[in-house]
């Protein structure tokens, strides 16, 4: 039971009713895992509802490049119910862009910087999209986690010399 007295079924029904026009598909995988696909535009509203109203904890966001589109999964945990809800958004591969969650809660700040530099996703409204992980001399526009990433450094040595 959550602090508002909701059960697992109650939470899922509440989400499905409240965001009926935003949800594309709900995949109820197991008692502890639910994957909900949503449209990109209302994501900030849904994430805010989960974080602030339901008191879920933001675990992390994971971006990935399927060859046809770019997907981001935002993982939230409702500890009282031992339930992990993952919100999936699908973005266009040529110009992936979505509104940033960093103004809503600090926990999303760094992961959006990481996804920006490793996958090339734009986060509108992020206060500080500087480089986080990659070195300064890394070329612009080369995104390591994309499926079509290729070695760009002519001086890299990839064999052991035997």
């Amino acid at each position, binding site marked *: 039971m959550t602090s508002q007295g909701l059960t697992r079924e109650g939470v899922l029904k509440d989400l499905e009713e409240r965001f009926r026009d935003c949800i594309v598909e709900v995949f109820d995988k197991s008692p502890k895992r639910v994957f909900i696909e949503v449209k990109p535009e209302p994501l900030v509203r849904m994430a805010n509802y989960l974080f602030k109203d339901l008191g879920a904890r933001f675990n992390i966001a994971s971006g*990935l490049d399927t060859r046809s589109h770019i997907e981001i999964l935002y993982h939230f945990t409702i*500890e*009282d119910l031992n339930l992990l809800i993952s919100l999936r958004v699908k973005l266009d591969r040529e110009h992936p862009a979505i509104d940033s969650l960093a103004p809503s809660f600090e926990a999303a700040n760094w992961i959006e910087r990481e996804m920006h530099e490793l996958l090339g996703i734009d986060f509108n409204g992020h206060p500080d999209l500087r480089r*986080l992980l990659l070195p300064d001399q890394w070329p612009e526009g080369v995104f390591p986690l994309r499926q079509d990433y290729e070695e760009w450094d002519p001086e890299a040595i990839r064999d052991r010399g035997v």
Partner: protein
Amino acid sequence: MARTVVPIGPYHPLQEEPEFFTLTVEGETVVDIDVRVGYNHRGIEKLSERKTFDQSTFVIERICGICSTSHPFAYTRAVEDVIPMEVPERAKYIRTIIAEGERIHSHLLWAGLAGHFLGYNTVYMWVWKLREEILDAMEILSGNRNNYAMFKPGGVRRDIKAEDIPPVLKKIDSIVPTLEMLKKAILDDPVLHARTKGIGIFSKEDAINFSALGPTSRASGVARDVRKDSPYGVYDQVEWDMIVTENGDVFDKVVLRVLEVFESIKIMKHCLTNLPAGEIDAKITSIPPGEGIGHIEAPRGETFHYVRSDGTNRPVRHKVRAPTFMNLPTYKATVVGETISDATIILAAIDPCYCCTERVAVRTTKGRKLFSGQDLIRLSQEKTERLRKDMGV
């Protein structure tokens, strides 16, 4: 008042991980902190995509040396969640034993480093000597002091022999008297109280806003621990307490970690004495297409792995998130407003595992360099000496 910039790192002699912290100070007070990460980034998520599911565990172990069990544990749980399946009972017990052994050695390591930063070098040497006993115990169980290589999707790779259990129990029991003495020394020492109480306070609202994890958030009153909220291994079958304190300052974090060591000893001894017979490996032959998530409580907080499979024997995507990634940004809330002599102990209080985060550094804004990292540790140790003299201890 003029602003000066104090860079710490990147090669600080005691904090062996490279990072670059930059503190902007006005007089003695820190007004801003910037963290520069990237010195440890090795592209492990991309490497995972070229390896098969069981080869990956060896790379994943080497994300971080200190929490070298928590990453493969979370990863194997993520792979098992794709199917989904549960491992055999004996495998769960063995996994819990290894995970708790790692928690003990990690907290002791941190206690030694914290002791050094505060000027208690004897504590540093004693605690690391004590830690050697635990590493010996892990070597008896798994064959190596670190990088145990015990985990595989479906169970564990090696069994624990019955004749190994008595010497391991003996080693664990041998450290308890010294730990009791250490606990008493910490809880009773007036200089330590004066030095760490009220320093670097992290409020509960901030802990929730930053989604801080592990001891960093439990010290601020957020009673969350993956072992209690979402039990895995045998944590729901053993009697143990979650340690939570209210104030969120450095003293609370020290006390919390020392008390957690005692709980881990309790869990480890229970599992070693009640190890059930049975299979250790469920022998998975193939992973179906799907997604899986595994999260476990590492010594620093929740480690989260996400795996997507398309039915072949390599993952399509493997996302790694170590707890320090969520805990590092909290420096903005804890260090700003404190003095520079307290900066090192506040930075160390979240137990940053830089290699887990694959970065940590503080970016320099332009300014004149006043102190080096070595100087900051010296300042911290000098403050303890001053307090000791003032209190006549």
